[in-house]
């Protein structure tokens, strides 16, 4: 359940903030969200991967449908990709990897602090 909430938060923030920020803002968002809420590493990675990846893929897909794949076909030809739909998937994959690893970094960073072992100065 927490996974879905985290995924939705990452996705929503990515969607809302990205148009006004640089592309790696999605990575920063995924990092911060996973830093501020406790989770396991795998859980965080999946949330970041799907949160950013699905938003990137969905947004690209939406643009592509409206444009009737005209321009993605042109760009696919330049990048020597056979089918423009692969560009939509590639967009999702790249966004997902960026989001996933940023989330993992966020949660492992958090884990550095959540169980600090109190050590005596003399122990």
């Amino acid at each position, binding site marked *: 359940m927490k996974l879905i909430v985290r995924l939705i938060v990452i996705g929503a923030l990515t969607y809302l903030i990205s148009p006004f920020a640089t592309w790696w803002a999605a990575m920063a968002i995924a990092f911060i969200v996973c830093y501020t809420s406790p989770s396991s590493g795998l859980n965080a990675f999946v949330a970041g991967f799907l949160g950013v990846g699905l938003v*990137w893929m969905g947004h690209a897909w939406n643009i592509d449908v409206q444009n009737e794949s*005209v321009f993605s076909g*042109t760009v696919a030809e330049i990048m020597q990709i056979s089918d423009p739909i692969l560009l939509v998937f*590639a*967009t999702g994959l*790249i966004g997902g990897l960026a989001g996933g*690893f940023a989330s993992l970094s966020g949660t*492992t*960073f958090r*884990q550095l602090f959540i169980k600090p072992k109190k050590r005596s100065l003399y122990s």
Partner: protein
Amino acid sequence: MKTFRFVLSLSISLALGIALNTKIGSIPPLGKFLSPFHGFWQNAENNKIDIESISIDENLKDSVNVYFDELLIPHVFANNEQDLFFTQGYITAYHRLWQMEFQLYSAAGRLAEILGPKIGNTSIIDVDRQMRRIGLMYGAQKSEELFKKEEPEVYALIEAYTAGVNTYIEDISYADLPIEYKLLNYEPEPWTPLKCFLLISNMNNMLSRDERDLEHTNALKKWGREVFDILYPERPDIVDPVIPIGTAFNFDPIVVEKPDVKFPIEFTDPFISKPNPDNGSNSFVVNGNKTANGRVILANEPDLGLNLPSIWYIMQLHAPSINTMGATLPGGPGVIIGFNDSIAWGNTNAKRDLVDWYYIQFKDENREEYLYNGNWVPTKKVIEEIKASGSFSYYDTIIYTHHGPVVYDRNFTSSKSEITNLAMKWTAHEGSKEIKALYLGNKAQNYEEFVEAFSYFSGPPQNYSFASVSGDIAIWVNGKFPVKWEEQGKFLMDGSNIDHEWKAYVPYSHNLHVKNPSQNFVSSANQHPADTLYPYYQYDYYYEHYRGRRINDRLRVLDNIGVDDIMNLQHDNFNYNAFEALPMMLDSLDSASFTDLEWSYYNKLRNWDYFNNPDLQAPSIYEEWWKKLNSKLWDEIDSSEVRVYRPNWYTTVNILKTNPDFFMIDNQQTTIKESAGDLFRLTFKESISSLEEYLTTEGNSIQWYEYKNTTIRHLLRINAFSKGNVKIGGNRSIVNAASSSHGPSWRMVVELGDGEVNAWGVYPGSQTGNPGNPMYGHMINDWASGEYYKLLFKKSFAPSDDEVVHNITLKSDQ
């Protein structure tokens, strides 16, 4: 362990982030490029136009309205000229930012900054060095200084244009950048007035730099004077010049005597790439005596590289003191080819040898002094830094003499040269005022004001045709021409000898012109400027010899002319070269020994009327035969150790017809001595096999347009952004000059009279430069099939007008 996990995942994240933000080889930074909020997806436009109204804090005195019509032509209505040119810069940047910047990176010799030091086997550094060495920037800087000192008012308008471009650049987000920036991973830099002057230098580079002086010297040394004169005659037997034969010249010319000089006859290797010899244009004007309705009609089309984004951008510019419309060049203020409420003007390149080469003798290795008129004169050294993306900078020292830059020197030479240190003298190295000429021309109301305006035009020299609502027609050969003695600068000259230098320029009033000639029309198509009665030496290595004669042949017989007739003449596909060469070639064939296949090819040519129409096969057969014939005929030239060049087509036909024993007709690779007839027979068979081969490997048919494959090519040569196989006829040296990569880059027809100005135009491209816009390249098919669009030229617009598809206001916040 935790620390390790964190460090590992953070490292992966950072590495991934950096990798996705970095261009690797030719692959753009994938994160940036694929992000649907920033990257290429944002260039996929669903609406044809999306520019919005904005408020401008400074640089705009008053609000400006811009109305876009169905073709996306902006009609700019401002209350003063400053605001008008500001808005021209702003709107042009909206549609064409990448192109206007990129073409001047090229002219400035800065391509390596964008493209890196190398692409494949091509050294971009060497391309840049060449541009720096021929001194386009050197000329632009001088023009800017001249304007600052002498033309502050026009300079202020150039600054307004600059501010308009920069306002657009400052406001643009990465998401809105043209796709080319994203593919190459760089961002626009601020515009400067200097770039507007560099644009003029760039036009000079395209149109006034062409010459063959060093090749001539090689040819003279290799073959001697007699052969040289056969290969490269200055004036063929028939000339139909720009200024009608018999026009009187009533002035006392400046006379320069040919001094008793010797040219340095040494082999050199001029390896700098030459402008494309297909750059040329047609323009013609008929007066009321020849038209059906008594109005005058002006037609013009510049034949240049067919590129996307298109070289031209169409605009109407309106303010209380000015109302002009036509083709602008992205990157410079004003209209280049167009009309206003009173006059119309067009231009074609007025070729003349404006580049000369001087052999320089330095005193010693330090190259700090050179010999001139018996003295050692100091040189000036300039170190050029050529930055390269993803690599270190390259430094090149260029030495300047009073002649100009020493283009070929010990650091820039070839082993084939017997001597090096060649300085380039070129009119484009001197400061000049073309932008003022165009500005005044845009506002000129009559013949006198037109003449005054273009007296400021130095280069590239143009045949300016003129028509007015009041019924006048005229043509002026405008430009700055050195007064030369016969053959001055046709060969390499001695830079130490004062007698080899240019002594004066032709005064403007002595420039060739004619107003309202008795033939009732004027025309120009890059042919010889005048007959031999013109008292100045007029020389260029290549005056076009077909298009001009065809246009004049037609205009002499046409009567009751309507706008349609003029448009048809612009699309005239008559192949004058084939008309003069093909009967001789066909007659030499031995039809008794023909195979069936040879008969079918032969009959197609025999039944051909010499029109290069797009769906015929004969033009392809002729083209192939003519190419093969030239290769066999000029094998001595193509395989020469030192650089020489083939004679032009007209001379070629002439030699074949009148000089059948000329030694080059003999094919070097055979032991028997060939005659012209042998060459025709041999190459006819070769052409058939090569066309049959083409049919089995590459093409489906040898219809002319498929075989020719006219392609409108993206400036980066990206196929997906280009449009090939355009169905258009014509060819080089045909009035409809569409060859595979060159052709009519803007067709314009203007009818003036009865207080009205009506204009039509079309070009192979679109106003938008964005390959992701639904309108990208939308005019290409209409352009090919001969359609024109009526240009909206009104004194006022309202947002509710049916013709207005979009409008914006630039609001002044002052």
